[in-house]
């Protein structure tokens, strides 16, 4: 008919790749968004918490008499009261913690601000008035605040033998790696001390819990996926999914903090079930900064060897992170090591990684939780380059994995097929004249002005699916209504991501309708199917693929119906702008609404046996992981007088495959970069020695403002991924690659004065003057010296009697055992069965996911060794090495390149 119509049965109008206005914006920009605090239910009561005044101690008494007598107060509940409705506080992976976690402190408190009592009153102010009257008497202990104190101090949790929350890897560098490092022309260490960060979403945490009927529950909760919260709460309360409905229409940012409910939200949910009244709790900003979970406090030392040409020879990493008292999943952050060298030709890498319990707020996720890997690696590369006299671009060129090098496998066993960090870097350099900049830099230095350029490259695993319980595929349900308008219900959820926009673009593009005619519904667990929402840069990749394929399937149905009605061949039917055309017969053009009305209302006119209506659903299971790559460049000026940093220019060159909406992609990157700037220069959540969080308001917790963020320049590479649609995730990248880019630029500017020897964040003006002055202006090295870190020793709390081995049985290894393997995703409980014949060992390990037999193991006295091959989350051979002593069993499980994980257990009763 005409050239506008393509051969794929779709018109020329493309919606994927367009900067269309966001569907969410008219509502949000005119103050009509629906956040939790906008929801008001009849008879709703308000909650405030009485919180622990100390960071650790035994609760002697809780006096709630005065609070209960306040007018308007309905209830004052403590741990003992809410224990009437048990709730299991699970991790993001739905696993149970090895420590006891309850919504309200039970018997002892473990961080300052831990909720102790929940007050229910007719207004928030009344609830706060009453909460202030709850008297909590504590026998205060000496808190463990820092990682250094956690190493040497007594365990903060009763029944634990140390403060190690999670650990993996091997302490000693093996001989082969040691030889590689020893033989290197340059052996260099980079240490990063990362400060603690508050996720600080604009909408603080909040929940309304309403019991409908005996055990039905409706929650309005600010979260990252209503589906995930419904599943989590269902498991936590042992209620069927069908009894729980979770609604979150608009969410004002989450960044990992709101993956699932935690102490306060759980307390409100349980209280609502017990009291039978709708309860609302909205976290105020003071609570958000001092009582919410937090992130990022970690230290990493990365050692690497280089040959004389600057090529990597081997590397070893040591990582420790502060898990706080009650992390949302104990974490040693294995991903740091998985990805630290993934984009580089690194022949050998080994590591040890630990998470530590302390008397501080718990650890929750934060955009790019493993971001330390890029920060420590990229700053190390620049340092090595300066030492070897190799330019930062050149040292990366010599080590990055380019497309021409692929397929390849990283030193941690990750298959690389289409990563493009090197190509992103080359593309970036086409937009920046490095030689010209070096001339400007030299001229500026002669005038006492200090300019610096920073470069960083990285890859990021996105769109993960199929290897971890919550990380599933995504569901699209698309229908053409009888009116011809298109509605879709997606498993996606937006905390500002604009998924209602991008998903509508995917659907309009593949259905041949106008973007304006597509409406996307999400944000309610009673709509659509399970998806973990915004976690792991996944929605554009997986849900985008689901929306595309679902729309294609639906378009096929439209073509079938139209061909039948118009007596044409389905191949000649073209959908375009909401019209149905037949190639070569313009007079047969019909609006989609006409076809839709017939599809629903006149079954006799449809092809025989065809389902009526125009509705389709598709759940997309993508490849297990899709890599995004990027290279960034920043130019800064450092004021040598004050140590202030000004960002002059920032270029992002990223490859997120198919770009659904450039404005949304650039918005995601910009937001991540703003947070990166905050982490490098401004944000800090310190604690004093008593465990007091010191940044209780935004006067002290400095968030980046618009004036701190430059106008970013974007270069998009578009290497389609292997997913449907070819997208790659872009949600977290800015927060990962931003910090090393900025630090490298500052380090380059400071290079005439010296190195930033140990990178302690944030790089405050005082810490920058440390380098310029070559003396301790900031007091940082004094504060970090061993003298200041007084080790704290406590008499451990008595171990509950049931955990004490009561007498030693004479039985050997044979028989049944209850064991726990501390995996990177949390402790995994399993039952073991061992059969011993002489020195031969066979048996099985059984977990809820299934049972696996093994044979060919060896018994030597009380020592057991056996191998088990597993497929999930990766193909790997687990090598167990256990020691039985009486009725206890303990040892290690070596998990290939992941290092070793601890195993503990006892004889099954």
């Amino acid at each position: 008919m005409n050239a506008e119509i393509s051969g794929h049965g779709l018109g020329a109008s493309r919606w994927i790749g367009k900067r269309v206005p966001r569907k969410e914006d008219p509502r949000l920009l005119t103050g009509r968004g629906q956040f939790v605090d906008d929801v008001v239910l009849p008879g709703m009561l308000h909650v405030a918490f009485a919180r622990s005044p100390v960071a650790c101690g035994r609760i002697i008494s809780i006096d709630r008499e005065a609070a209960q007598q306040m007018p308007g107060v309905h209830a004052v509940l403590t741990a003992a009261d809410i224990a009437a409705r048990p709730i299991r506080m699970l991790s993001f992976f739905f696993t149970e913690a090895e420590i006891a976690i309850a919504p309200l402190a039970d018997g002892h408190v473990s961080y300052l601000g831990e909720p102790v009592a929940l007050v229910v009153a007719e207004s928030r102010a009344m609830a706060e008035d009453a909460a202030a009257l709850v008297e909590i008497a504590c026998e205060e202990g000496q808190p463990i605040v820092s990682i250094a104190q956690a190493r040497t101090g007594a365990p903060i949790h009763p029944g634990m033998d140390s403060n190690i929350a999670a650990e993996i890897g091997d302490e000693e560098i093996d001989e082969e790696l040691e030889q590689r490092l020893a033989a290197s022309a340059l052996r260099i260490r980079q240490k990063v001390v990362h400060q603690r960060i508050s996720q600080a979403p604009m909408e603080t945490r909040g929940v309304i819990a309403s019991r409908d009927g005996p055990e039905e529950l409706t929650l309005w909760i600010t979260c990252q996926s209503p589906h995930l919260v419904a599943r989590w709460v269902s498991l936590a309360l042992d209620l069927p999914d069908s009894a729980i409905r979770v609604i979150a229409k608009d969410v004002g940012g989450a960044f990992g903090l709101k993956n699932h409910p935690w102490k306060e939200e759980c307390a409100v949910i349980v209280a609502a079930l017990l009291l039978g009244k709708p309860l609302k709790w909205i976290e105020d900003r003071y609570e958000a900064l001092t009582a919410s979970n937090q992130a990022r406090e970690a230290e990493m030392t990365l050692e690497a060897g280089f040959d004389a040409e600057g090529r990597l020879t081997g590397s070893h990493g040591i990582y420790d992170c502060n898990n706080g008292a009650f992390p949302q999943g104990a974490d040693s952050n294995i991903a740091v090591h998985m990805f630290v060298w993934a984009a580089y030709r690194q022949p050998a890498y080994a590591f040890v990684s630990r998470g530590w319990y302390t008397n501080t707020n718990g650890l929750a996720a934060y955009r790019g939780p493993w971001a330390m890997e890029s920060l420590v690696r990229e700053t190390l590369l620049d340092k090595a380059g300066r030492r070897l006299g190799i330019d930062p671009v050149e040292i990366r060129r010599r080590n990055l994995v380019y497309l021409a090098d692929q397929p390849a496998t990283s030193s941690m066993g990750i298959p690389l097929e289409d990563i493009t960090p090197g190509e992103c870097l080359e593309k970036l350099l086409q937009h920046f004249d490095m030689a010209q900049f070096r001339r400007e830099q030299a001229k500026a230095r002669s005038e006492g002005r200090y300019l610096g350029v920073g470069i960083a490259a990285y890859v990021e695993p996105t769109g993960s699916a199929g290897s971890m319980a919550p990380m599933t595929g995504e569901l699209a349900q698309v229908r053409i209504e009888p009116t011809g308008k298109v509605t879709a219900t997606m498993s996606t959820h937006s905390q500002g991501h604009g998924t209602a926009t991008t998903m509508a673009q995917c659907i309009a593009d593949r259905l041949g309708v106008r973007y304006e005619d597509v409406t996307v519904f999400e944000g309610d667990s009673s709509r659509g199917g399970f998806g973990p929402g915004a976690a792991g840069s996944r929605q554009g990749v997986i849900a985008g693929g689901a929306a595309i394929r679902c729309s294609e399937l639906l378009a096929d149905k439209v073509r079938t119906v139209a061909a039948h009605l118009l007596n044409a061949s389905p191949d000649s039917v073209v959908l375009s702008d909401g019209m149905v055309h037949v190639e070569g017969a313009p007079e047969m053009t019909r609006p989609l609404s006409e076809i839709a009305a017939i599809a629903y209302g006149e079954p006799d006119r449809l092809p025989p046996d065809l389902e009526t209506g125009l509705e389709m659903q598709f759940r997309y299971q993508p490849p297990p992981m899709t890599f995004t790559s990027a290279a960034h460049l920043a130019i800064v000026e450092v004021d040598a007088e004050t140590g202030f940093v000004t960002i002059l220019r920032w270029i992002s060159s990223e490859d997120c495959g198919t770009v659904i909406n450039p404005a949304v992609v650039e918005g995601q990157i910009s937001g991540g970069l703003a947070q990166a700037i905050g982490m490098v220069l401004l944000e800090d959540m310190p604690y004093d020695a008593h465990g007091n969080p010191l940044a209780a308001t935004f006067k002290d917790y400095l968030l980046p403002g618009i004036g701190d963020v430059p106008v970013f320049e974007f270069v998009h590479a578009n290497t389609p991924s292997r997913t449907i649609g070819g997208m790659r995730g872009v949600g977290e990248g800015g927060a990962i690659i931003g910090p090393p880019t900025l630090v490298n630029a500052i380090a380059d500017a400071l290079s005439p004065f010296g190195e930033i020897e140990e990178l302690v964040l944030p790089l405050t003006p005082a810490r920058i003057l440390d380098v310029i002055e070559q003396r301790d202006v900031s007091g940082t090295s004094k504060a970090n010296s061993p003298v200041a870190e007084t080790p704290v020793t406590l008499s451990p709390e008595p171990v509950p009697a049931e955990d004490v081995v009561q007498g030693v049985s004479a039985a050997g290894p044979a028989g049944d055992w209850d064991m726990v393997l501390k995996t990177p995703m949390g402790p995994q409980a399993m039952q073991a069965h061992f059969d011993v014949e002489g020195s031969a060992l066979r048996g099985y390990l059984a977990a809820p996911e299934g049972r696996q037999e093994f044979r060919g193991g060896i018994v030597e006295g009380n020592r057991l060794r056996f191998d088990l091959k597993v497929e999930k989350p990766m193909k790997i051979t687990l090598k167990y090495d256990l020691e039985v002593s009486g009725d206890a069993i303990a040892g290690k499980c070596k998990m290939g390149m992941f290092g070793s994980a601890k195993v503990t257990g006892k004889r099954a009763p």
Partner: protein
Amino acid sequence: MSWRAGPSRRSIALKPAPFDYVRPASVREACGILAEAGGGATVIAGGQTLMPLLNLRMSQPFILVDIAGIEDIQGVSAVPGGLRVGAMTRQADGLTDALLAARLPAMVMALEHVGHHQTRNRGTVGGSIALGEPAAEMPATAVALGATMEIASLRGIRQVAAADFYLGPYMTALEPDELLTGVIYPHWPEGHLILFREVARRPGDFALLGMTGAAVLENGAVARIGLAWFGMGPTPIRMVQAENALLGQALTDIDPDVVARLAVADAAPFNDHHVSAEYRRTVGHRIFRRTLREAFGLKEAA
């Protein structure tokens, strides 16, 4: 006018702890309330500091005395020997005031750095002065320029020199029954030099440190000088040694580096979680030296 916040708390989404609210129409009425309250009352002017503190329950007064309705503490007027700025004068109004612009540009320069555009619309000169935040511009500028505080109570009106007004962080010479009604800035001759520099992470942030003041030159020598630090100690700090070293000196005889050392010696900087005392001393020295050089047109030392 008075209403009790308590009984209405059922229906209104209030955040602060309960308080009585009164809005007196005159200074005398306000002072009467303050005297009666015996220390339980807090004065609210623009509320830009107090409102967040009330909502955070860091401040829990029994009575909130709103002085916004008192007419004779608003605006700028000429008085014998100088200018009187009424305590309730909004900062934004001060910035557009013709008298201040013509006669006290050193004060206007400091005022431009107070908070943000939005907070200056409600924030008042007197509010900032009476709060006594050690890192704030208005208290230090009052000290530097030699201002006098006009203080009213039922016992009468008294005047206190700005230099004697600040006792510690957020601690002033105001008694619980007293109200700051105005700030009287002495006359500074036309053409006085402004010595102002603030080191803040971002515009509108609290200063890490800063200096403020004015100087008058006659016949190539310093005829009058008033200088003070902010963010360099528990109170605004008058740079007495530096002033003495400069007064009467010919510009040609001034060594900015030496005077800067004296200026820093007057200060008592502190560590906080933003920067260290040593940073404040180091950068204080540099900004003083540079500001002095620029204001006096001195050449860089060879």
